[in-house]
């Protein structure tokens, strides 16, 4: 049995094998399907969530190791989808297929939570773990910088 906090709510998992990665707990057991599966080996960033505020790949993170920890997923990033990054993403029409974008947003949100004045090169480095096969990188950069401006 594991007890943890997900999007501000206490969650008790008593029927999940502790080695199950958080990603599949979210998707299969809790039906929080905003977080995506892309590679399963912490290489693509599609499954990024916040673990105690830090951007973390959920696809290799055994849920049994998360007792007492706090997880935020895209469903908990903002109450109405109005995080400055979400607004900037709409304004710049960032997504193409959209599949990677939740992970991109979660990585960007963790970055801006620490640094609201990142340089372009800091953004590029911080976002290097999130692959976008559609190639939305230029717009991600522009949208992160717009959101950063709003947050300053």
């Amino acid at each position, binding site marked *: 049995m594991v007890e943890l906090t997900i999007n501000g709510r206490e969650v008790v998992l008593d029927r999940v094998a502790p080695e199950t990665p958080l990603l599949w707990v979210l998707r299969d057991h809790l039906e929080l399907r905003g977080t995506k599966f892309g*590679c399963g080996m912490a290489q693509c960033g599609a499954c990024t969530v916040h673990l105690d505020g830090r951007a973390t790949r959920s696809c290799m993170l055994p849920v049994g190791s998360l007792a007492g920890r706090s997880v935020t997923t895209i469903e908990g990033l903002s109450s109405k989808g109005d995080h400055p990054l979400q607004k900037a993403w709409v304004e710049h029409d960032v997504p193409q297929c959209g599949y990677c974008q939740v992970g991109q947003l979660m990585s960007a949100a963790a970055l801006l939570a620490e640094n609201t004045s990142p340089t372009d090169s800091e953004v*590029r480095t911080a976002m290097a773990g999130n692959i976008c096969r559609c190639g939305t990188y230029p717009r991600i950069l522009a949208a992160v910088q717009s959101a950063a401006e709003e947050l300053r």
Partner: protein
Amino acid sequence: MSTTSSVSRRAFLSGLIGAGGLLLAAPASGGTLRKLLRPADGESFEPSLWLAIQPDGLVRIVTHRSEMGTGIRTTLPMVLADELGADWERVELSQALGDARFGDQNTDGSRSIRQFYEPMRRAGAAARLMLEQAAAAQWGVPTRDCTARDHAVHHSDGRDALPFGELVAAAAALSVPADDALRFRSPSERRYVGKGVPSYDTADIVRGTARFGLDVPAKGALTAVIARPPVVGASVAALNDDDARDVEGVIDVIQLDTPRGAPGFAPLGGVAVVAGDTWSAMQGRAALEIEWGASPHDAFDSAADRDARLESVRQPGVVVRQKGDVNVAFAEAARRVSAEYSVPYLAHASMEPPCALAIVKDGAAEIWAPTQNPQAAQGMVAGALRIAPDRVSIHVTLLGGGFGRKSKPDFVVEAALLSQRMGGRPVRLVWSREDDIRHDYYHAAAAVAFEAGLDAQGELLALRGRTAFPSISSTFSAGVDQGSSGELAQSFSDLPYNVPALQLEVCKAEAHLRIGWLRSVCNIFHAFAAGCFVDELAHARSQDPVQHLLALLGPDRHVDLLAEGVQYGNYGESLDTHPFDVGRIKNVVRLVAQRSGWGGELPRGRGRGVAVARSFVADAAVVVEVDIAKDGKLRIPRVDIAIDCGTVVNPDRVRAQLEGAVIFGLSLALHGEITAENGAVVQSNVHEFKLLRMSEAPLQIHTHLVESSAPPSGVGEPGVPPVAPALLNAVFAAVGQRVRDLPLARHDLSWT
């Protein structure tokens, strides 16, 4: 494009659906659709249906193409809405099921706008006229004084407008206008076309509520993963599933047949593990012990295969285009320039691996899948389950990327078979990334050789090209060992250069993997080789590459490929509407050169490269600038890309596609490589099949759109082909090193 092309009156039907909505349908004039809609007996056909207007004014538009990132799900309905005079805020989209009545639904080949721009306009214009007629009748005025816009019909005297919703009942009673009665909005009257609207799904995507293939809820759904044969054509020789069945959560282990012969769209076979959840299924699969039987492809080795292709293009092949006599010209040449280029196999690696949810029971199949081609999925599933196609419903979810992979419905069939075997329980089929990379329909590897003959003054006398690549046809017909005319007509047999003597040949290449099509298909390796060779010629002739390219393209003219023996399909378009126009090709070269700052001096280690390609009846030119440190580390400060795609329908999405094409092209040029040993693909995940990351992406991408009123052409793919050659040409300009075999990352670019 003609705006008066035949719209059969019978093709329009009006009637009521739901709560008394007005329903209209418009067929396309294009080949496939016309065939589908033209009734055998003249009367008894069902039309395709695009539009419903509800009494509350809500406009519902059916979007029948698959959304995989191009924005097409937004753009085609936007065209209809604009012609109708609807307010986009009051438009709701419904995604069509796979259904032949919609005409072609295979979202592939950069042709959604090409095929459906006109039908969408006609559907909108016909509905608008009926609403205007309904208003005119109500007011007792001539229809010509009535105009639909902003979701209402207005009268020229300024009286209170009649909202669409209030006109629904009256309009539904009218007969559908003949096509010669239709009037289309002039560009100045358009509210959306040429300007764009916000992409329909963006708000859901950023909230995480958009539904991709794995996101469809289903009560009691099981999850399946499949261990597929590592070599195409191998079947299970022996299986021990004891440990797999012992994994907690695993419910069943099911063996699947491996088809013989050409793989086609059929599943590969293997062993499926079905479980209550994804992780258990994956654990179960890891515990399988499988011995695979022999396959005719067991000895396949991609390195030897590459050498064989290069050897193949050193020998004469079958001539596919001929102008003048190259042998005579070569005999006269004072100097020859030659080069061989090689491009490896590539995987699609869309961020969402293939997946599907299937419920097969009571002789019917209900399936949700991120498919580019729902009708092919419907047909294949029906065949595999031995039920009629109309018993198969294919719901198209959003696609987390497609790039051609998801045109092939093998994965949809797998899900259907498993649900059937599980007695009709919903089965969610998950492909891992490893499954995706190891069991793709690969983009063909290729060898391309060019040789040019120059006279003593450096004038170009002759050009000979040879290409060898495993054909897509081999996927459908075993043993095919030569590219088809359609594949050759992708930046090879259709080379636009003005050379006195030209000979192009296709040489043999065997296929041992499933060969598919990847964004821009054979243009990738053909445009790479041609684009690099033209640059090599520029340097050999001591000319500026842009000036040389323009000169080599020759006078503005329409190229007549048929006269030189080429079977040229022009991507399915008529040469009257979409001519092979060298003037337009040169124009994008000039545009990109001018906007990129071409010609300015750069220090050693920095350089610019240019390339151009015509594909999918669009012209695209690229300038890449590179900055290579002494230790060989490459940065890309800037890429400029220009396109002439005819009428630009949704400019921001065109720009987005070009940005994406630049990243896609750079990714394949820098990193893309699939290899195989003993018949099996070596790479497994994105640490081995690398994709371009943000940290490597160009610092700036500038997109340039040619303003045009010509009929629209393709957009999704044409940006890709010129990117790789422009990059490699830039590398040469920067450090003087010619890289002719991809990927670039395998080469040391250090300099002193």
